């Protein structure tokens, strides 16, 4: 049997993006031995790509802003499918988490009186996003990384976790994985495990996500028997790059529109005025004059429809392109060049300026950008206790994108970074409490470890089998074309059939070379996660026979009030793993207290 090394910790955190870092900092601050385990180098997690800002009702720019308005905006943006308690905690605690970052060294942009300034973003009633130009995620991760280093938290970098380990009672008690540089296996024993593994975007062809976003945490939670919810709710960001093909999907921050950029079709028409849904009509400008005046004066004008929530904008762009009014490369135009000065654009959007200049040869201070929807964010994820982030399996916690519930059917821009901070901290506290209360020695099951290692090693012993890259590309094509932004029942059925074939092909993958830093083998070990989350997304999408938020069914184009009262919950009972079936069924949403209901109805 293959050898492995073993490490013992009170708490291990899998994933070192914003949520994982914040969770580890919290657990470590409680005096517990804590390890951070991440697939990439430390500080490279996908959080670095967040651009626009952290949503927090600090009221620095609009004093009338407060947590109640933020809560309302979040619930409306999520089409009321959110876990109300998570949305409440998030809105209440986000300002403290931002001020905490400032005390740890983050240098946010300032107001004239020296406070943290805030910018406008889609779906937020007031300018609410604390930011650093258009590289807020980098500032967040670097600040947390430097804090973690100063606390001497143990970091296991370039270490891929394959599977959670469970004791005889079913409680999660550790994890098994391998070092990417050597391919050697490693086992962690832990009293509590926090999943902070981020997103699933790599299951799609065009995505703003990095290679890491293979849904490992979503899948490992399912394989451990935990519930996941709302897997059908995948956000397509309205503005990704569309050209050149090699960068198709790369994110263009919503900050472009927050800072004055307007969406236009081939004819120069600002088409978003044609797509204002009833739910947002009362608070959205009807004329270009009012929309443009809103940027300077929110009190006397209604907001521009260019800043409707992301699901609305993505569908509108999709419809314009389909109607033949798109740009030459199959997107629409995003124009800030004709609306703001070059100096303003370079100062406010430096990353976008360089991204377009260097990758597409487009000067965004002089020409419009071409943009189109790109797979961006997973609203669905592990079903958690809103206070502790505990999953439905003992010893397991989840925070950030891998956790579900907070964002409902659609996430507002800026609510992701605040989610990471608020619930990363809460997951760290929840895991620390659990770890402290767990008595007795951890008993790891050697058979689980051996089986996981054997599965991981199997592709080396096959010859002439499937190429992992081809399986991945076929998986991405399947999800992109059949489980994308607009869905239908027959296509979802077809997707599930194809995913079945891909599961069979995955079992026949063979890889060349050795175990040391072998990307073909690494990909082969990512594919089981990608297949499990893809299956859950397609199953959820088939079950939710309505259109709500980011989930759009062509055959059920309207929301169904009855389905708005349920989560679709998925889990594995009995047989586990990517080849085993996942059960799905509706369960009622948690009941919201009356005083919060009233907030939703106030002011529109």
């Amino acid at each position: 049997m293959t050898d492995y090394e073993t490490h013992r910790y009170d708490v291990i955190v899998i994933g070192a993006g914003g949520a994982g870092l914040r969770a580890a900092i919290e657990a470590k601050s409680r005096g517990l031995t804590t390890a951070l385990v991440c697939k990439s180098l430390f500080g490279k997690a996908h959080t670095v790509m967040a651009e626009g800002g952290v949503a927090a009702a600090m009221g620095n720019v609009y004093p009338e802003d407060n947590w109640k308005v933020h809560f309302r905006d979040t619930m409306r943006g999520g089409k009321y499918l959110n876990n109300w308690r998570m949305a409440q905690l998030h809105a209440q605690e986000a300002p403290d988490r931002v001020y905490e970052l400032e005390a740890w060294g983050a240098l946010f942009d300032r107001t004239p009186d020296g406070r943290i300034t805030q910018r406008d973003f889609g779906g937020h009633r007031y300018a609410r996003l604390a930011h650093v130009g258009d590289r807020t995620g980098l500032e967040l991760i670097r600040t947390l990384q430097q804090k973690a280093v100063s606390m001497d938290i143990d970091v296991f970098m370039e270490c891929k976790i394959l599977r959670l380990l469970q004791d005889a009672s079913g409680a999660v008690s550790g994890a098994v994985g391998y070092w990417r540089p050597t391919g050697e296996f490693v086992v962690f024993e832990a009293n509590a495990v926090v999943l902070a593994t981020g997103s699933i975007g790599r299951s799609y062809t065009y995505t703003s996500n990095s290679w890491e976003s293979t849904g490992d945490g979503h899948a490992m939670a399912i394989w451990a028997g935990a519930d996941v919810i709302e897997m059908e709710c995948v956000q397509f960001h309205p503005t990704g790059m569309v050209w050149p093909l090699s960068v198709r999907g790369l994110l263009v921050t919503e900050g472009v529109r927050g800072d004055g950029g307007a969406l236009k079709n081939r004819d120069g028409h600002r088409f978003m005025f044609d797509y204002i849904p009833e739910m947002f009509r009362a608070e959205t400008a009807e004329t270009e004059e009012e929309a443009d005046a809103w940027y300077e004066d929110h009190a006397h004008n209604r907001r521009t429809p260019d800043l409707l929530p992301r699901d609305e904008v993505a569908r509108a762009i999709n419809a314009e392109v389909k109607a033949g009014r798109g740009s030459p490369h199959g997107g629409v135009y995003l124009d800030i060049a004709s609306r703001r000065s070059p100096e303003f654009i370079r100062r406010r959007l430096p990353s976008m300026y360089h991204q377009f200049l260097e990758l597409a040869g487009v000067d965004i201070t002089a020409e419009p950008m071409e943009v189109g929807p790109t797979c961006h964010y997973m609203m669905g994820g592990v079903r958690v206790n809103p206070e502790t982030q505990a999953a439905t399996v003992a010893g397991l916690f989840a925070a950030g994108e891998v956790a579900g519930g907070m964002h409902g059917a659609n996430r507002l821009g800026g609510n992701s970074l605040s989610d990471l901070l608020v619930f990363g901290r809460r997951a760290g506290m929840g895991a620390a409490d659990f770890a402290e209360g767990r008595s007795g020695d951890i008993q790891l099951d050697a058979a689980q470890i051996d089986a996981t290692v054997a599965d991981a090693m199997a592709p080396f012993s096959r010859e002439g089998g499937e190429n992992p890259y081809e399986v991945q590309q076929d998986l991405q094509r399947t999800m992109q074309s059949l489980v994308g932004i607009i869905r239908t029942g027959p296509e979802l059925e077809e997707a599930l059939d194809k995913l079945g074939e891909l599961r069979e092909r995955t079992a026949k993958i063979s890889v060349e070379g050795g175990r040391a830093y072998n990307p073909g083998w690494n990909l082969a070990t990512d594919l089981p996660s990608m297949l499990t989350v893809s299956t859950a997304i397609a199953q959820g999408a088939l079950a939710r026979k309505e259109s709500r938020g980011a989930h759009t069914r062509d055959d059920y184009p309207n929301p169904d009030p009855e389905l708005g009262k349920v989560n679709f919950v998925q889990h594995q009972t009995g047989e586990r793993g990517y080849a085993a079936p996942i059960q799905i069924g509706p369960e009622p949403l948690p009941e919201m207290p009356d005083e919060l209901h009233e907030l939703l109805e106030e002011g529109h």
Partner: protein
Amino acid sequence: MTDSIPASTPQSTGATPSPSPSPSAAAGMPATPSDATHDDVASTAPLEDGAAGHAFDPAADEEDEEDEEEPTVTLRVWRGDASGGDLVDYTLPANEGEVVLDVVHRIQATLAPDLACRWNCKAGKCGSCSSEINGMPSLMCMTRVDELPEGPITVTPMRTFPIIRDLVTDVTFNFEVAKRVPAFAPPPRPDDGYRMQQVDVERGQEFRKCIECFLCQDVCHVIRDHEENKAHYAGPRFFIRFAELEMHPLDTNDRRELVRQRMGLGLCNITKCCTEVCPEHIKITDNAIIPLKERAVDASYDPIAWLGRKILRRHKRSPEEASAASPH
């Protein structure tokens, strides 16, 4: 680089196997990037009017080529591990608008599935895919193939760090130095919050754009050519970290003696190679290293400035205190 493009791929060029983990030296690569075709790689000049959107037409650039068939791209990639390695050519059809990392990915998917290469975001934001392209320390994801000179594109791992495999190096050195930087130490938060002016935070913000690609560390000859200096030299990435903290409006640690005595600031002789390769266009030398050198000298030798600090400025902790604040 005048060899004709090999007809079949992959194919070894027969370069001398490297006896040590220094592939670019073995392959005859220039020792410093100033000898290389820097302008071609790092140019940020906009394309000429109307160039955006034009199809990539290599035939227009290769008038002497008799071959009018489908355009190709050849990557000459260093492959090997700590025991040695070799340059291997891979030729594929060229695609419009591609960056070097796209070609590496296509090589992995079709010709060499185990070709090791580190990458994450493919957007110039994470700093993972650092390598040396035609000898120039560069991000593979931000280097467009159509902006490189004609002929095979040589891709080698960063030379300053030990080889793990192929294009992947062991950059542990940088994470170890990071642990030796004393942490940010603000005064207690006032009731109405910290106040800072935009103009004051912008100085530090320039340095916090750093994506930790470590290309500045790679190109810095103090450690590129002198392994022994790594024990007492932090390198440009950490000089900007020190400068950022030194210029942070709220920080109370004084790290000037530390950076001079134990981080090797004096070894930097301002050749500006680091500034040249920075993908974030941080003016490392002018805005961080030179001011830091001035402040460090100021701290050591100017008794009037010392007295003035004692009397007029907020308390800054001494190097010993600052050093003690670090966990290592």
